[in-house]
């Protein structure tokens, strides 16, 4: 509830101690990074646990023997720590990770990072997915974030439950029968009729976010104009509301205890999610191994998550930093990232490597890249505004009112748009 005085003191002492350590470290840094755009032999990297393959990170020292490489796994709220560090202009890393959900925000701070195109990134452009490259580029064409991984979405489902309910259960049949949201919902109704208490959709917000991700527009455009009241958002809203109306939503927060238990019990035999969700299902529902399959998402793929590496402008040796980044993220190493940390490659050449073409026993021996690979290529490019998170919130809140409080979807839509507009005005989106 509150922080006790003792805990505050402990935190304070710890803070002081780490500040002291930081100061000594900084003294060491200053000698080398004093020259701008210099040739520092000591390079540091900030990433988070699971953000890169630890094996690839460890191999940097052998690949670049002339460099002293200092990788740090920063725990806790990564973005907040990076922002604090940039603001204080102290102890900056020479290379840093940026999470997918924060890339739009850092695009607004593009001046804090080096344009990777100037370091020769343009030659590598063709090796990476075009939409992902755009996502890492500012509106003026500067490349800020170099692609690490992506999150192409698909439909995860339990073949045994689908079969029991008399639904199509083979991947090819599911693909054919649930190609659109409408047919997917129809099958959801059938599923519920055959097995009462079994639901096709986890929660309405999941459908909503996926449907928004299937379009080429989001909540605000590049001119800071509010477009959340337009057709593309309205369509996504209607789809989510329809899932609620048909009674095929399980109404539980994804990732919660209930959803995990339901995966195991088979009462929630489907999940719309990015490639990395496979890892969540595997750890939450270990006993159901072999029963899951992956099919393309109804009405096409979207992207969720996936991160970047960037070079802050204070980097001691941008040239070398760029070399390290491109080496860590080449197709071979991205395949290692997939094996070690379930990071889905952003370099399509990796899709043909054994790490990705191997059959997955958890998915009944299915080669999942056959679904994710084509999905990755087809993801629509949308402008992501740094205000998307503020503008999305009223929609998610009102959608939960529709789902759990039985609020009229029409009234909820009006309220959501009004609230989003009001929030937009605050931040200068109108």
């Amino acid at each position, binding site marked *: *509830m509150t922080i006790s005085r003792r805990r505050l003191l402990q935190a*304070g002492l710890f803070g002081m101690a780490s500040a002291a350590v930081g100061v000594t470290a900084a003294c060491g840094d200053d000698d080398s990074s004093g020259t701008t755009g210099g040739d520092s032999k000591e390079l540091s990297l900030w990433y988070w646990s699971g953000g890169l393959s630890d094996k690839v990170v460890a191999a940097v020292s052998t690949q670049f023997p002339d460099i002293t490489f200092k990788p740090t796994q920063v725990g806790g709220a990564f973005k907040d720590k990076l922002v604090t560090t940039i603001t204080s202009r102290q102890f900056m890393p020479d290379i840093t990770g940026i999470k997918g959900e924060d890339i739009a925000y850092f695009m607004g*701070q593009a001046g804090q990072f080096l344009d990777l195109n100037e370091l020769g990134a343009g030659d590598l452009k063709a090796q990476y997915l075009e939409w992902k490259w755009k996502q890492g580029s500012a509106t003026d064409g500067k490349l800020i974030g170099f692609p690490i991984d992506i999150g192409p979405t698909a439909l995860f489902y339990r073949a045994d439950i689908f079969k029991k309910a008399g639904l199509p259960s083979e991947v090819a049949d599911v693909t054919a029968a649930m190609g659109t949201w409408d047919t997917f919902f129809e099958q959801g109704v059938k599923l519920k009729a055959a097995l009462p208490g079994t639901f096709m959709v986890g929660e309405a917000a999941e459908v909503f976010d996926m449907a928004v991700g299937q379009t080429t527009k989001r909540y605000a455009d590049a001119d800071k104009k509010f477009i959340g009241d337009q057709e593309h958002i309205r369509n996504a809203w209607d789809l989510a509301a329809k899932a609620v109306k048909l009674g095929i939503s399980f109404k539980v927060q994804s990732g919660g205890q*209930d959803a995990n238990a339901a995966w195991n019990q088979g009462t929630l035999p489907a999940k719309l999610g990015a490639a990395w969700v496979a890892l969540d299902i595997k750890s939450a529902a270990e006993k159901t191994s072999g029963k899951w399959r992956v099919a393309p998402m109804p009405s096409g793929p979207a992207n969720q998550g996936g991160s970047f590496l960037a070079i802050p402008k204070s980097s001691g040796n941008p040239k070398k930093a760029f070399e390290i980044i491109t080496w860590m993220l080449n197709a071979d190493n991205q395949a290692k990232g997939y094996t070690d940390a379930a990071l889905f490659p952003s370099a399509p050449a990796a899709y043909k490597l054994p790490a990705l073409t191997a059959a997955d026993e958890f998915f009944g021996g299915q080669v999942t890249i056959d679904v994710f690979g084509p999905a990755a290529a087809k993801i629509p490019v949308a402008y992501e505004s740094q205000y998307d998170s*503020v503008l999305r*919130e009223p929609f998610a809140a009102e959608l*939960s009112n529709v789902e759990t*409080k039985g609020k009229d979807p029409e009234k909820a839509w009006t309220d959501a748009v009004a609230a989003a507009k009001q929030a937009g005005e605050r*931040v200068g989106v109108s």
Partner: protein
Amino acid sequence: MTLSRTAAPVAPKTRPRAHPHRAPGRRRRVLSYWPQYLAISPFYILFAVFGLAPVLFSFYLAFQRWDGIGEMQFAGLDNFKYLIKDEVFWLSLRNTLLIWVMSTVPTLCLALVLAVMLNSVKRFKAFYRMAFFIPNITSVVAISIFFGALFATNYGLVNGVLETVGLPGVAWLQSVWGIKTVIAVLTVWQWTGYNAIIYLAGLQTISTDLYEQAKVDGANAAQVFFRITLPLLRPIILFTVVISTVGGLQTFTEPKVLVGDTAGTGQSGLTMVFYFYRQAFSHNDYGYGAAIAMVVLLVVALFTILNWTLVQRGQDGENG
């Protein structure tokens, strides 16, 4: 007869003695105490760096527009003007007050009962005290995750028990009142023991003579409790009420872990601190976040003063 009364006259006695000293002499005297000042300095230095400075910076920030990295823009009272018409803020204030009442009242009542019971325990005293205090030093995040599992709608233990005895299950974490109830129950569980220990300390300062005399006069247990125990515990109760107010109005971790960033159905788990956290750190709107934080400070101060006067007035009435 009360602590606050006897404490008041002490201060003026020492003050006149210090007065006649001229400035230079006084400075020398202050300097001569440097080892003592040095000895107590760590707290003040830490407080200045990690307590005072951030508070002052937040105050400054509340009048700015800032995304965390770029240039700050002076916004005047814009943040506060927006706050007044921001329905989500008022919702968060209502949520906070409701959760505070729902958790503090049962916590303090239960704690008092527990303390009276603990006071009459003859054996395993240390064991009981420790057992009741342990929830308070357990990680809130861990407890919240555990409560999330207990109160899960479909596969939670609580609903399992309800259903076995033939009652319908409750969508605890998917309903407006369910979310608040779970947060309140969690808080009660965590803080009852802490307050009970404090009450116990208070109970032990009450002279046994009073109880013996009451017994001689033929008072029953209820009379003893309401006429002797409760009035003498008043300063302690005031302390716990103030501490619970300051803490309860800043509830954050429990809803954040239990219902996540959406704050649950109808944002019913959205407390004031949660809202300012979300504005500042999820939406990178640090100026507005700071403005909300300032209002939180104001609300906490207001309710603390209100509690203080209410509890104090009750006391005066009794004496007069």
